[in-house]
Every structure is written in structure tokens, then in C-alpha cells.
């Protein structure tokens, strides 16, 4: 909300400067968003006295003036029609920055005559729109004095009101809070009843159904006849304009003004246009109201309207109706001041998309005791500005009961707030804020009608602390554990290691949306449920992702479009598998596209292939502590690789029956649908499926290293096999052929071609043999070799290549 300094001072007797006031406002929780103080820019400007004003020798419309600064006389060329001898003016001298242009004034020649200063208009000083002439200061202004001491400069303060602070919806509430914080005294305020001289023109008709009376518990009003509407006085218009409101007419401006002044929305009907009794009722479904903003709204049956006997004449608590509004010809008005249910006003305002000052107040919660005083204050102001005669007050419904006292132990201020405030000061602060305090054990503290937000003792602690000052709470370090325990649990630690392992493997971590388009999701759903959003932000982000890969592929595609064809991206994040909390799996996912390296003088580069993705997935598993010897590779769709991977160039990594990861070339049809060029390979590791490390009996100790002192020997074997036999089958056969002596198996050649015949391939392996007990003899080595050949033949049908 916005208000001006002079407006605040109507309610607050203070000598504090704008800076002091804004600092205090922020410190008590009324955060100052902006202070617009035109005076700040005018510090150097002084009162000048025009001694002479002659015609400019070279220009008919310009004048040549002699202007006294009090210490010297300057020659000033001026084009203003009202520049004349004897006038006190706002004088800018060379070096002064003109607020309108933002530029420094320089001495200059105008039509060959030197001008040593400038006499300013309202617009040039950004004090208003007037540019018809220069500002005429009162004759009493002291020549040479700063103009800020003479001009009426009214800084505008804007505060960012938190939704709980219903008490500060009006300028008076802000003043009350400042007074409580010791920045002045709250001035008295006249809300006494205005004596009515005749019965009101109509009665209040409370037409809400009994179970919904909370939507408008009280409705007060009165007739004022013989009013004269017209423009409101300048001071009122100035204030409205200063805070960005548009003056309309005296009667409308009074209600606009009091809404800001007191946080009390009011409405004035043209009494002649009302028919019969007036009051709140539920709208009928589809009922329309032509509102003051020129738009017609269609209401539903949850909404409250203000209605007379014939029709709805306003949207309750939000906006009045156009047909019954006051105009220049209005002579009798009916002033309305009512209470509405915040939740219902918020819902109605949202549904109708109306942002009015009245809605702003009512949806936060207007002072429940303000309906009747609101009418009285408005009446007094109408009589003052528009004349007329007031009727007796009419009231429907009743003011809600006063708030219940809150039991309060003042020691809680220190216990919760961490600062000691004397009981007397606690009591004083609460009383300055309008609370009624009955000391005892515990205290009974009754919130004033404008503090509906205070319901528990913690609220009272906040009241005391914010007025006492958060700055006065001395920061105390958290008591520390003597020795810090790890902040991460085993799973979190694992995720961190995986993340840094992938980065160390040359992949760049990215973060992509948890959502994507349902078209993309369909490509990756693989038969699983895809979870849609009921209210997506856009059509291309309308479902939760069933995989992290599509967003990574899109990322690789965007990079390719920028000329970066070799993408290596990874992400650690969830995939979503169901509608309920927890139906998600944490994945480490990555893609590599293009080539494994840039073109280079020394190395032949190659396109990425499925084994690059397998290497990443294995790297993740190994970093996560899964022993490589316990991992089996399954090949292709038949072993459970997802359908979005190439059926023949993909696989899964399993530990027992548990699939931990899948990898491979992305299916060309998927790439086509995503409009991204291959080659592109991808992997996902389901981090949630990695078993937790088992606690062993000997704790952190590793099994004893049994390094043999005897000479290892290597033997190479080449087998001719059917082309469809997997390398894994061969390696497994070799591994199982001799468990004690084989310490390492390497696969160093794969050949398919004329030398082995069609449908065949050759696989060459090297086997390292070493005994723990003695140097191997030729006979022992030969025996192992025979076992290996036999095992491979038995398992795969492969024969030793001759």
C-alpha cells in the first residue's frame, strides 16, 4: 500500500524524517518497498527573487530576468509567460540536476544572451504536470532559502504488506504501529456517531440463508440528502493522485480516500436509484451485475451481492454496480459499510478476476468493529465536503463478538525469542498496540478488534519482539556437536560419489524439468503408466517424466543445433511411476552423442556406441560399491532392455535377478520422433535399487590380500564360434573352467570375416594363471588349457582356432 508523509502525519504526531520513518517501518514488519521523495532531488534549489524582467533583445517570447539569490544577482533567460519582477521563484543554478531531464544545468547562451540559471516549473521539478509557467512561491519565502523549506513536498511511501497485517491496511493503522514503536504519538480521531435528523430512506434487508450469514454478518448504512457532488477539494485529489488513484467526484473520492485512510471499504449509492430495502444476499446462479469498472460479471450462487428489492446493485465487498452509482446530479446518497467473509471474498475475487481496493481489504480481513464507525466517519466527511443532512443509522446483522483473551506467560518472550524484555515493557508494548493486558498467572491478553491475526501466545511473542526490535536479539551460535557426525547417510553419500564419478568420466551434469510433453513421454513409457498434470504450465510440459533420457536427448539436440555435435550430459533425478507420493525412482542417467572425441592429429576418432554407455553405467555401479564380478550383462530387448533402445544394440546390467541399469544406442525411431541426429547412446542406473553395503563382522577391515609370490604365466586362446554366441558366454565358461589358478581374463580380439567363414566369428582371449602355492609346471598349465578349451566348447560350441 502507498501513502504520503503528510497523510501519515494526519494520524501521527512525529518529528521523524522520512528516512527514520521508513527504517522504523521496515524494522517493525511493514517493509518499505519504495520511498519516492521528490524533495531529495531538490536539495540544491533555492528561492530566487525576480528583480527585473525585460524582454529578451533577440526574441519576442523570451524574457531577460535579473534574479537575486540573496547573495548575488544572476541573469536568467526565461520563456515562462508568468515570469515577472517581484516574483519569488524556484531557482536552479549551474550544476543543479533538473529532476525532469536528469541533466545538470549549464550556463548557456540563449539567442546570444547569457543565461546563468533557470526558473523551474512544477513539471521540471517532477512535482506535478503543470508546465504552463514557472512556480510562483509565496511572497513570504526567504530569498536564498532552500526551496524544500517552502514548497509543499510530500514524499510517497510504499509498504509491502504481509497478508497477516490486516491492522495496517489503512494509514491510521500504520500510524498506530509507528506510535507503538515509539516514533510519535497517535493523534485522536473522531468516529463519534453523527446525529440523524430523519429516518433512513430504506431498511437493511439481511437476505443470506441462516447457515451462510458469516458471509456478511453486519451491514450498516444511512441516507444523506441534499448533497452536492462535484470535484473533490485539491488536497484530497492530490493525495489520491500521489498514490496512483484517479479522482472521480467528491462522493466517490471520499470512499476511495477512507478505504486507504482506514482500511475500511465503503460504498455510496445514488439513493434515488435504489428500490426498496437494501442488503446482502446470495447471487443466483448466472445473475449478472454491471460493475463500476464498466464490465458486466456473471456470478454464481456462492457469491454475495448487495441487492435492493429489485436487483443486485453491487458485488458484495468487491465492487459497486454501475446503474446505482453516484453522479454529478446525485442529491441523495445511501452510504454502505459492511463486513464480509475473507475466504468468500478471496474466492469471488479470484473467480471474477477483479482486483479492487475493497477486495484487497476484505480478503485479508477488515476490522470487524469498523462497520458502524465507518458509516459515521464517511457521513461526517460527506457533510463537510458535499453538505446535506444525515438520516438515522440503519444496521442489519450484528458486529461479531470481541476476540477471546489469549493466555500468555511473559517468560515465553525470552524462551522463544532469545531476548530478555522486562515484564513492564512487554505489557507496555502490548498496550501501545491496543491489546488489553490483565497480568496474573498467566496473563490474559485480549487483542483489539483490528488484530484478528493474533490468536496464540506465539503471536504475542512476535508482537513484543518486532516492537522491541529483532535487531535487539543477540545472535547466538548453534550449540555444536563435540565432533561432527556425517551430514549424509549412506544413500546420500552414494549419490554424491556417483555424481562426481560421472563428471570425472567426462560427462557434464545438467538439470532438466521433471516434466515433458506427453508425446515424448509416450516414446519412453515402455508400457508403464504416464502421470499427467491436471494443470500443466504448457502443452509441452504436461506429464511427469517416465525417464530422464528424453530431456537429455532434447538437450543434446539443442547443443547440436548450436554446432556442438558431441554432447555428453548426465542428470541425477527422479522418474515418476505413479500418482502417489513415493512412486518415483532416483536415476543416474546420461547420454553421449556424436564422437567420443574431437578430430585430432594423433588419434582416430570413432562414433559413440553402446559400450560407451555401458562403461558409464558400470562406472556408476562400481562407484556405488557394486562389485564388477557380481554384475551380469543381459543383451537387448529379450533380456529386458527398454523399448526406446535399439533392440540389437542395448543391454541391461543385473545383479542376480535385479536389473540395476540399462544402456545402449537409442532407438532410431525415437531419435527421429525427437528430431535429434544420432549416433546417440544412453544409460540409466536405478540408484534406489542398489543394495546397501552389508555391515560385516570385521567392520571397516578389508579381506586379507593374498598376493602370490610365484611367477604368473599368460596363455592366449582363439576360439571360432557361431556369430551369435556372446562374449559373456565365452568369458563365463573360461572363468568357471578353473576357479583357483585363473587370476585374470582379457579379451583382445574379435574377428568376423572370410578367414573363419560365414556365420562364424573368432574371439581371442588371454588368460593369466598363477598359483598361490608354487610355480606352475608345464603339465599344470597344459591341464588348465585343456580344461578351458573343453569348457568353452561345451558352453558355446566354440572350437580352438587352428
Amino acid at each position, binding site marked *: 500500500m502507498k501513502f504520503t508523509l503528510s497523510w501519515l502525519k494526519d494520524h501521527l504526531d512525529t518529528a521523524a524524517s522520512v528516512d527514520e520513518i521508513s527504517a522504523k517501518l521496515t524494522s517493525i514488519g511493514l517493509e518499505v518497498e519504495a520511498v519516492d521523495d521528490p524533495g531529495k532531488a531538490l536539495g540544491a534549489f533555492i528561492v530566487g527573487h525576480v528583480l527585473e524582467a525585460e524582454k529578451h533583445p533577440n526574441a519576442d517570447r523570451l524574457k531577460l530576468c535579473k534574479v537575486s539569490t540573496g547573495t548575488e544577482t544572476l541573469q536568467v533567460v526565461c520563456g515562462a509567460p508568468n515570469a515577472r519582477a517581484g516574483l519569488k521563484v524556484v531557482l536552479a543554478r549551474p550544476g543543479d540536476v533538473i529532476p525532469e531531464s536528469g541533466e545538470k544545468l549549464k550556463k548557456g547562451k540563449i539567442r546570444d544572451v547569457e543565461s546563468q540559471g533557470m526558473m523551474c516549473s512544477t513539471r521540471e521539478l517532477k512535482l506535478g504536470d503543470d508546465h504552463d509557467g514557472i512556480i510562483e512561491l509565496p511572497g513570504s519565502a526567504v530569498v536564498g532559502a532552500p526551496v524544500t523549506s517552502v514548497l509543499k513536498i510530500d514524499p510517497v511511501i510504499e509498504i509491502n504488506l504481509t497478508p497477516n497485517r490486516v491492522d495496517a491496511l489503512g494509514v491510521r493503522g500504520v500510524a498506530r504501529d509507528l506510535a507503538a514503536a515509539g516514533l510519535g504519538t497517535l493523534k485522536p480521531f473522531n468516529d463519534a456517531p453523527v446525529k440523524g435528523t430523519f429516518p433512513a430512506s430504506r431498511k437493511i434487508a439481511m437476505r443470506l440463508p441462516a447457515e451462510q450469514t458469516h458471509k456478511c454478518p453486519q451491514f450498516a448504512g444511512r441516507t444523506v440528502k441534499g448533497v452536492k457532488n462535484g470535484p473533490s477539494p485539491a488536497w484530497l485529489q492530490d493525495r489520491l493522485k500521489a498514490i496512483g488513484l484517479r479522482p472521480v467526484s467528491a462522493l466517490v473520492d471520499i470512499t476511495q480516500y477512507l478505504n486507504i485512510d482506514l482500511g475500511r471499504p465503503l460504498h455510496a449509492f445514488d439513493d434515488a436509484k435504489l428500490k426498496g430495502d437494501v442488503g446482502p444476499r446470495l447471487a443466483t446462479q448466472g445473475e449478472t451485475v454491471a460493475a463500476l469498472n464498466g464490465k458486466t460479471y456473471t456470478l454464481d450462487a456462492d457469491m454475495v451481492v448487495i441487492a435492493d428489492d429489485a436487483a443486485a446493485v453491487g458485488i458484495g465487498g468487491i465492487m459497486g454496480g454501475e446503474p446505482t452509482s453516484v453522479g454529478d446530479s446525485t442529491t441523495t446518497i445511501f452510504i454502505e459499510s459492511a463486513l464480509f467473509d475473507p475466504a468468500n471474498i478471496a474466492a469471488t475475487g479470484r473467480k471474477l478476476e477483479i482486483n479492487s481496493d475493497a477486495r484487497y481489504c476484505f480478503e485479508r480481513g477488515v476490522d470487524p468493529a469498523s462497520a458502524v464507525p465507518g458509516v459515521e466517519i464517511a457521513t461526517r466527511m460527506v457533510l463537510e465536503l458535499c453538505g446535506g443532512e444525515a438520516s438515522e443509522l440503519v444496521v442489519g446483522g450484528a458486529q461479531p463478538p470481541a476476540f477471546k483473551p489469549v493466555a500468555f506467560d511473559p517468560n515465553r518472550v525470552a524462551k522463544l525469542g532469545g531476548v530478555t524484555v522486562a515484564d513492564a515493557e512487554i505489557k507496555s508494548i502490548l498496550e501501545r498496540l491496543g491489546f488489553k493486558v490483565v497480568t496474573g498467572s498467566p496473563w490474559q491478553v485480549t487483542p483489539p478488534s483490528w488484530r484478528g491475526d493474533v490468536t496464540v501466545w506465539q503471536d504475542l511473542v512476535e508482537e513484543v519482539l518486532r516492537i522491541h526490535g529483532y535487531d535487539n*536479539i543477540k545472535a547466538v551460535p548453534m550449540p555444536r556437536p563435540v565432533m561432527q557426525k556425517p551430514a549424509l547417510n549412506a544413500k546420500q553419500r552414494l549419490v554424491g560419489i556417483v555424481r562426481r564419478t560421472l563428471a570425472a568420466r567426462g560427462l557434464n551434469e545438467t538439470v532438466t524439468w521433471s516434466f515433458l510433453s506427453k508425446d515424448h513421454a509416450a516414446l519412453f513409457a515402455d508400457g508403464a503408466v504416464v502421470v499427467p498434470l491436471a494443470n500443466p504450465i504448457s502443452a509441452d510440459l504436461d506429464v511427469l517424466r517416465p525417464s530422464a533420457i528424453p530431456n537429455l536427448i532434447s538437450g543434446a539436440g539443442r547443443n547440436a543445433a548450436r554446432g556442438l555435435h558431441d554432447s555428453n550430459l548426465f542428470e541425477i533425478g527422479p522418474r515418476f511411476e505413479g500418482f502417489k507420493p513415493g512412486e518415483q525412482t532416483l536415476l543416474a542417467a546420461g547420454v553421449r552423442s556424436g564422437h567420443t572425441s574431437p578430430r585430432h592429429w594423433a588419434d582416430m576418432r570413432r562414433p559413440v556406441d553402446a559400450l560407451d554407455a555401458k562403461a558409464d553405467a558400470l562406472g556408476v555401479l562400481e562407484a556405488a560399491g557394486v562389485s564388477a564380478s557380481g554384475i551380469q550383462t543381459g543383451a537387448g530387448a529379450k533380456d529386458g532392455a527398454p523399448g526406446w533402445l535399439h533392440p540389437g544394440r542395448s543391454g541391461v546390467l543385473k545383479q542376480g535377478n535385479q536389473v540395476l541399469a540399462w544402456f545402449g544406442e537409442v532407438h532410431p525411431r525415437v531419435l527421429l520422433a525427437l528430431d535429434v541426429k544420432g549416433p546417440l547412446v544412453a544409460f540409466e542406473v536405478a540408484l534406489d535399487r542398489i543394495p546397501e553395503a552389508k555391515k560385516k563382522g570385521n567392520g571397516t577391515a578389508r579381506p586379507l590380500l593374498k598376493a602370490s609370490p610365484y611367477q604368473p604365466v599368460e596363455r592366449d586362446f582363439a576360439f571360432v564360434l557361431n556369430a551369435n554366441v556372446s562374449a559373456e558366454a565365452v568369458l563365463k565358461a573360461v572363468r568357471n573352467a578353473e576357479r583357483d589358478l585363473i587370476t585374470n581374463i582379457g579379451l583382445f580380439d574379435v574377428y568376423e570375416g572370410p578367414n573363419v567363414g560365414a556365420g562364424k566369428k573368432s574371439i581371442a582371449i588371454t588368460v593369466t594363471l598363477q598359483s598361490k602355492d608354487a610355480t606352475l609346471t608345464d603339465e599344470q598349465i597344459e591341464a588348465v588349457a585343456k580344461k578351458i578349451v573343453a569348457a568353452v566348447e561345451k558352453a558355446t560350441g566354440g572350437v580352438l582356432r587352428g
Partner: protein
Amino acid sequence: MSEIDQLRGEVLAAVNAATDVPALEEARVEALGKKGRVTGLMKNLGTMSPDERKVFGQLLNALKTEIETAISAQRAKLDTAALDAKLASETMDVTLPIRPETKGSLHPISQTIDEMAAIFGAMGFTIAEGPDVEDDFHNFTALNFPPGHPAREMHDTFFLPPDQEGNRYLLRTHTSPVQIRTMLNEKPPIRVIIPGRTYRCDYDMTHTPMFHQIEGLVIDTETNMAHLKGCLQEFVRMFFGVDDLTVRFRPSFFPFTEPSAEMDIGCSRAGGELKIGNYGDWLEILGCGMVHPNVLKACNLDPEVYQGFAFGMGVERVAMLKYGIPDLRTFFESDLRWLKHYGFAALDVPSLTSGLSGGGLNR
């Protein structure tokens, strides 16, 4: 005797004159080989009288040793010369670019969360996590959001369609539901930080539909606002690396805390550039407060016994501030140039022992 002196002179001359290994070998054979001159004299020793043999034998042995020493010295000289000659012919262009090595990187969000974990870990916090899909109770009701609160509207919050049982779940709008899960599952004292993905229906210059928050929660019987101030003051000073960074707490409002505060840190905006430090201006950094009694009650904790604080901040926002990243939306674009520029090296693990992150990879 003179015979030996002459022999010595001739043999040593031949050894020292040898310019390559074969020549040296030839000289050796001529002196010490089976038919060599020294060997020949050795053979004659047998014909001499014992006294003569003794004297002559000693002289011959000394000569033999002298020749062998001269040969190895000459051999070393020749080897050195040969290696020098070989090295002189071997060169490579070491200005050639090295073979490609691909460097990966960590996203600034991950690094920032790791930094925060290091700082709060030292204060005795552990890390708690929770699901992205949440229910109304954990995301709103238990956090004291009244019915009809604007945050509960489709306008602000992503909802899933109702499931078969008619339950309507949502994407968590903050990490605070994990506070509730933690308080329901663990007994105080509680000290946790909660990083994670969060979601709101907003997409413009300064908002993305997904972003990250980190939340803190402390519950015990003693922790008060002075600790809240101390904890967060220490955090921002350590995180931004400004030891005396000024902080300011302002009263504010959140449904789930009472009293509530917003925390500002010192900054400068001079010349349109934001700098963190004690320059007289203020920058809002996070929201915090003492956990609201209704929240404690929703978690079956008695607010007359238990108390504590909570705070929350945007991870991207503090990462932007610390690392000078200008645009929020770029965090989620997977632009390799951005990831490499603003990312962090795999081994740059933040810790209070070795220090938090300094600049990026491209220092």
C-alpha cells in the same frame, strides 16, 4: 722392465685412440685376449724363477688392472658420445596439442547444495529428503495453510488428476513437506536440512516451473530466535566467504512460522552490479521463523514443550548471487557452453577443511 713400460705405453695409446666400440674391443683383445700381448707375458711367468716370477707377476697384474681401467673409462666416454649423438637426432614437436581429454562438470545447483551441506553439517545438521509428489496434508494443511489460501489454487500449484480413490496429489510447492515427514518420523532433537526439487505454476524471466529449495528445521526444547539468527548469520558469512557480512532480520509472515522473519544481507547495487558485502544496501536472502504451534501440533509435538526454527531459500537464487549467474532460466537449458562455464570440477568437493568452492572451472 722397459719391455713392460713400452707395452703399457703402446696398449694405453691404442685404448685411448679407439673411436668406437669395435676399435676399443680390438685394442682389448690385442692386449688382454687369449693371444694378447699381456696374456703372452703372463704365460711366460711359468718359465721364470720364483723370485723373478713374484716381481714380474706383480708388475703384470698392475699393468692388467691399469689397462682394464683405461678400457672402461674409454668405454664410458664412447657411450656418452654415442648417446649424445642419438639424442641429437631425436626430436618431436612438443608444441603439438595434447590428445583429447574430455572434462566433465558438476551443475552449480549440485555444488551449491554440497556447499550448504558442508556448512550446516558442521553445525550438526543431517540431510533429509522426500518425494516430489505430495499430498495436501504434508504440503499445506500440516504447514498451517488455511483452507482457501491462494497457494492451494490451481493457479499456483501443479496438481495431478485424482486417482482411482479420488485422492488428488500435487507437486510439492516447497521442500517444507519434508519438515512434516521428518517430525512425524523422528523424535526431537531434530536438525535437518532439506534440499530438493520444487514446483510452482510460474514461468517468466525470474520464475521457472521447477526450481530447488533448501530448507532447514531445528526442533528441541531450547532453540530460540537468537539461535536462528546465529545459525543463519554463520551460514551466510561462510557461504559467501565474507567473514563480517552484516545481516538484518525483519519481521515478516509465513503460515508455518511464528514469529517470522526475512533475512537480508549487506550488498551494493552501485552501477547496476550486485555485490555481496557491507556496502550499506540490503538484499533479501531467505525467509525463516520459529515453527508455528499448529505445525508442531500437526506433527504430534506439544508446542508447550517443543520449539525450534525453520528457514528456506532458493538454491538457484543463492547460486546466482554467489557465482554471478545472470539468468535463472539458463539453469535448465543443458547448454554445454553454460555447463562448462558455470560448472564445477568433479574433484572440487566443498568441505570446511579444504574450503568451499571458489570460482568456476574457467578461473
